[in-house]
């Protein structure tokens, strides 16, 4: 039993690695954006009916809780962009050390973008 638990723990060791976490964040942020995009398009499509319908939605989105969610979306978009750029660089440019540091910088930069957005709208 103890041996089995130790083996499982060893098998999951890679999940503590910053680059594994970066890959997971990239995938989950992409998934979340894919879920959000149809709603985003449907919202903009309200303008087909009338400008007033779009305006009605935008005034609903003035609620602080919606602004917080928008900050989350800015984070998702920025972290997916920066994670994707890192991936393209790894695959197409010469390898260089410091990949973990770049992944951390990407996460921090995305968080800064989200906080900056919230500072503007709240």
């Amino acid at each position: 039993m103890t041996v089995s638990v130790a083996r499982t723990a060893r098998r999951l060791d890679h999940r503590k690695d910053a680059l594994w976490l970066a890959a997971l964040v990239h995938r989950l942020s992409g998934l979340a954006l894919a879920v959000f995009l149809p709603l985003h398009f449907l919202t903009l499509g309200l303008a087909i009916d009338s400008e007033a319908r779009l305006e009605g939605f935008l005034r609903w989105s003035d609620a602080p809780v919606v602004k917080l969610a928008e900050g989350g979306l800015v984070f998702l978009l920025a972290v997916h962009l920066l994670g994707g750029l890192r991936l393209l660089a790894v695959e197409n440019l010469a390898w260089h050390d410091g990949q973990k540091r770049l992944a951390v910088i990407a996460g921090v930069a995305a968080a800064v973008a989200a906080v900056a957005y919230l500072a503007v709208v709240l």
Partner: protein
Amino acid sequence: MNLSLYLWQRGTAALMAPMVIVHLVVIFYAARHGLTAADILGRVRGSLGWGSFYALFVAAASIHAGIGIRNVLSEWSPLAERTAGIAAAAFALVLFGLGLRAVAAVTLP
């Protein structure tokens, strides 16, 4: 993921990277200068440039998201590869349709 899908996903990613940066700048600009329907439509309605930009953005995002969803479904769900591909292609088509409708709604005069 086969080679063709891999190239499409990386190609659309490279195409979209500058577009996402522009989109983020627009988001911040709109948030700073007041987000009203009149402001949004005043900026983009009748604009061939913004219409083309966002139509291309929608096409690239639909392809990119479709391939990403296919990867997630085939790796994280019990769906067979073929079923995952069909579901992802359907998602990409819906996204493309909704996206073009949204672009038309805000850019066509």
